[in-house]
């Protein structure tokens, strides 16, 4: 797979599920925490990319 966005979604998904399972025991808490981690990673990258838009290479 060469899609940067695809890797962003997949990688942040793996990390989010891992940390949710590692640090939370309650299923609802796991979903909440995992979702927040995933959104933080994927959303943070997209936000950063948007902020960098005015600065082309």
């Amino acid at each position, binding site marked *: *797979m*060469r899609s940067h966005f695809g*890797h962003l979604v*997949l*990688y942040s998904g*793996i*990390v989010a*599920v*891992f940390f949710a*399972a*590692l640090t939370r*025991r309650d299923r609802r808490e796991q979903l909440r925490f995992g979702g927040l981690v995933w959104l933080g990673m994927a959303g943070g990258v997209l936000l950063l990319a948007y902020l960098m838009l005015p600065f082309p290479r």
Partner: protein
Amino acid sequence: MADSRPPGEAAAREISPARAALAVAVGWLLPGAGHAMLGRLRRAALFFVLILGSFGLGLAHDGRLALYNDKERFLTGLQLLANVGIGPADAFARRSVYGEVAYAIPQESDPTYVRRIETFRKRQRSAVSAYGTAYLWTAGLMNLLLLLDVWDIAMRRKD
């Protein structure tokens, strides 16, 4: 905080430090196996899939299997630690990629020098190598974190 479980149950779940160390060692040998040994089977299965899945993605995307370099000891040492965290799977991967279980850049006079360096650089030049490296190192680091989790569970610091 006091243990709220009945004394019999708490005693039954007591694990000796030797068994805890064994669980950590088993967890390093096979991701998730430490949790399985402590009876956390569902979590063990999930961690096994996540870590070996990430490792497989890393290999499939030409991830860098770090080689220790005397000129950059600190950084290459950390990279190697992240790789080796996955356990013996790293050694199998190195054997398949480099043709031998190699962990360092050999001396220039060594007959394996050219082949090893070229293999390393060829993978590094791949368009997807950066992704692969992230998956590989993440897999190793996640497994190292799991070992701490196994120890904490065994020592009853965590459920």
